[in-house]
């Protein structure tokens, strides 16, 4: 039995995962970050991206949008706006969101609006990317 640490993944609408985990890989601001049991105390922000964690020797994947992670030697907590399994992603909705965002980016917008649409586009692209990766 491999060494494990406690992992909580909580999104605004549910508790996504709560339990032991052997290995966690997150997408941080400047790249991928692997976390094993006994990791030093760490706090970092999570942009929309992919998340994978190993339970009983098998990788599990999830799409995550905006959040942050607190890592302690014995446990880790991820708090995110939304967190979904690849099979839960609604491709059609994400595709529509992407098109809507791209359409909006072509218009002249204020800086704030521009950031909003870009963030929306990022979220949609992330969902599409992850669902594509696991189903094609």
């Amino acid at each position, binding site marked *: 039995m491999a060494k494990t640490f406690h992992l909580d993944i*909580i999104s605004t*609408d*549910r508790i996504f995962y709560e339990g032991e985990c052997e290995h966690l890989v997150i997408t941080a601001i*400047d790249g991928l970050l692997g976390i094993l049991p006994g990791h030093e*105390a760490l*706090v*970092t*922000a999570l942009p929309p991206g992919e998340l994978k964690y190993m339970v009983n020797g098998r990788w599990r994947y999830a799409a995550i949008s905006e959040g942050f992670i*607190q890592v302690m030697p014995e446990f880790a907590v991820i708090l995110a706006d939304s967190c979904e399994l690849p099979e839960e992603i609604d491709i059609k909705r994400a595709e529509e969101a992407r098109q809507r965002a791209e359409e909006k980016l072509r218009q002249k917008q204020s800086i704030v609006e521009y950031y909003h649409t870009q963030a929306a586009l990022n979220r949609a692209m992330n969902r599409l990317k992850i669902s594509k990766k696991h189903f094609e």
Partner: protein
Amino acid sequence: MANIREIRERIASIKQILKITNAMYLMASSKLKKARKSLESTEPYFHKLQSTIESVLEHTPHTRQLYFDRRSDIPEEKRKKGYIVITADKGLCGSYNHNVLKYTEQEIAKVADPDNCRLFVIGQVGRMYFQNRKNSRKVSVDSEFLYTTQNPTLYRAREIAELLLEKFEKRELDEVYLIYTDMINSNQFEPKTVQLLPFSRRHWGIAPDGTLKKLPKASFLPSPEEVMSYLIPQYAKGIIYGAMVEAFCCEQQSRMTAMDAASTSAKDMIHDLSLMYNRARQAAITQEITEVCGGAQAQD
């Protein structure tokens, strides 16, 4: 003895109102079910968010971060305070709106100069109340701050948080508070204030005996300032969303209770009035019979 026709009209009008209150009761109870569900599913996030931020701050080295800046160079009477107040969109929900508004009045009364006070009201009732207030202590209500309390979404919370953070950054506001109704249990609500900005860490990181806890500092990637500038908006958004969900749930609950009470008292009134109606009718019949008998006897 009241007029029979008057009583009959009164009964008919009460029956009409009973229909309305009953329909509103049913609507509120179905909305409540939905609101309860969303409250239950966000609650773990809400609590975890607070406890995680607390423990993160305990491990945070001292930072010169914008959101922590208490601006202590500004004297108390010159500080610009912003209040986000969550009320309902409609009335007819018992004392729910009244309690929040009264509480907000008390909070505003504490501020030395009402000119430094700005209100950001979510919900129609509250906005109307503060805009039309004929009071010497007039506070400005942000008229472009138009958000509904119905079915709170994360998106709306994000917009509100961004707006307030921006005002704080531009020094248009020095302190930001959030006033909402907290659900103690399903029959007990209480208005509550939470300080959003500046982010205070006075109560945190201090052990029960009053000394500063010596905890190992966590490492921050890429840097504490960067992580904090990302984390605080996230926290503000989470808190606002949680408060909106909770307030909406309270609103539905108190509307349901109020409408249930109204339906019950309408039924009581109908009962009393129909008793009166029957008595009056009986009296009229008796009187008529007496008159007929009297007439017949007089003819003999």
